[in-house]
């Protein structure tokens, strides 16, 4: 059943402080809406539970990308198009730029926001594995003040997060300390354009003196939340190239994830493809190193 517009309130206070005051006055009553690429789909289908919405779209406080001496601060209201257009994000955080280019169509990239993607907490969201490997932090704000938390602890279960009812994400903070790393990501879906991922893997790695000196891996669409693959990383760390390390890493991966069966794919398929992507990552990491190419 289609929603009746007369049954829904939407306000646009135009200032972040006014939005936070509203959320503080009636916590849990007002649903924030940014570009609407998720909320309006639920609304259009008559599945939106909230009856009162507050617009975050166009708040200048949330739509800045600022590179300080130490950090890249991405406002939560930045769209995927904003991310794709930003040359420093492309250079310093290529996995994020690439994930933005995979997220929906151009029209949806013009409206969908990074903060919205995080709060919506879909395990299949394209940008989230990239945020995990870059060890992003989130700046949360409410009328009570600010707090900064590691993104890695944000999701507590399927579509569950640590965000309080009066709080929103103000910004995503990234440390630019991955220069010279090999950056790998691959999304597997039903087709190239627009399909939601059956699986996506993001990886960062550095080989020095023929050994893996550092490695970070995260996977989306595999479990109820995006996952950092710490045991798989541990199996690779310090190793030199041999087919054995791929076999062992695949085993570590299988041991540390509990894959889901859903409408988009099966657990068995996901596990198998995840192993293949992992293998591709490891091979590309060493191939890149031996060829001495900069990427």
């Amino acid at each position: 059943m289609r929603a009746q517009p007369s049954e829904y309130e939407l306000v646009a206070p135009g200032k972040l402080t006014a939005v936070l005051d509203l959320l503080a006055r009636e916590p849990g009553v007002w649903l924030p809406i940014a570009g609407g690429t998720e909320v309006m789909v639920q609304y259009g289908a008559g599945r939106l539970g909230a009856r009162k919405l507050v617009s975050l779209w166009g708040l200048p406080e949330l739509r800045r990308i600022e590179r300080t001496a130490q950090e890249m601060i991405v406002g939560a209201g930045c769209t995927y198009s904003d991310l794709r257009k930003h040359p420093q994000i492309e250079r310093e955080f290529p996995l994020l730029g690439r994930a933005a280019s995979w997220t929906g169509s151009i029209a949806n990239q013009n409206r969908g926001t990074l903060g919205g993607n995080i709060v919506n907490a879909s395990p299949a969201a394209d940008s989230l594995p990239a945020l995990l490997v870059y060890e992003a932090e989130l700046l949360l704000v409410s009328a009570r003040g600010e707090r900064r938390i590691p993104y890695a602890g944000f999701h507590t279960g399927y579509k569950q997060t640590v965000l309080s009812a009066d709080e929103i994400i103000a910004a995503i903070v990234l440390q630019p300390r991955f220069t010279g790393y090999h950056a790998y990501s691959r999304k597997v879906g039903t087709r190239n354009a627009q399909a939601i991922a059956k699986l996506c893997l993001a990886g960062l790695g550095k080989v020095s003196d023929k050994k893996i000196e550092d490695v970070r891996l995260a996977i989306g669409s595999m479990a109820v939340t995006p996952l950092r693959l710490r045991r798989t990383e541990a199996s690779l760390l310090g190793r030199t190239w041999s087919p054995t390390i791929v076999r062992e890493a695949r085993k570590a991966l299988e041991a540390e994830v509990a894959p889901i069966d859903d409408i988009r794919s099966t657990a068995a398929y996901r596990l198998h493809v995840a192993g293949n992507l992992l293998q591709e990552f490891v091979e590309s990491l060493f191939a890149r190193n031996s060829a001495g190419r900069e990427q």
Partner: protein
Amino acid sequence: MSAKRCEISFTVNDTAHSVSVYPMERLLDVLRSELGLTGTKEGCGEGECGSCSVLLNGELVNSCLVPVLQAQGASVCTIEGLAPGNGSLHPVQQAFLKCGGAQCGICTPGMVLATVHLLQRNPSPTLEQVREGLGGNLCRCTGYTRIFEAVLEAAEAQAVKV
């Protein structure tokens, strides 16, 4: 519960409008029902098909996913606003006509607006870039080949003109 109507003032195809609507009405419905601009089509109603594409402050958006309150003060361009109004067509429309880039026509307004958006940012796209630029616009008739040819034709015509 019943929400209050609000006054939305915006510019559509270079004409100022003010409408009294519910803030959560979809921009798509306001364009079609309040302003009678039925060139913007509803396909899926969930942002997947691109039939309802319009330019909102110059950016391509799915108007089925835009609550009208978020268009307050904005400038909107729909398919009706493209042609210069002297009986001739916009060059992109002309290219679609020339190449046979339309069949049933439901997707065509969105395809044309996605093409305008693409060519404004990238005047001479590769076929791959055309595919990406129009990736959010679904067509169930043509098989896309003639649509992509029309986009490349429009790009070429534009280049000749400059």
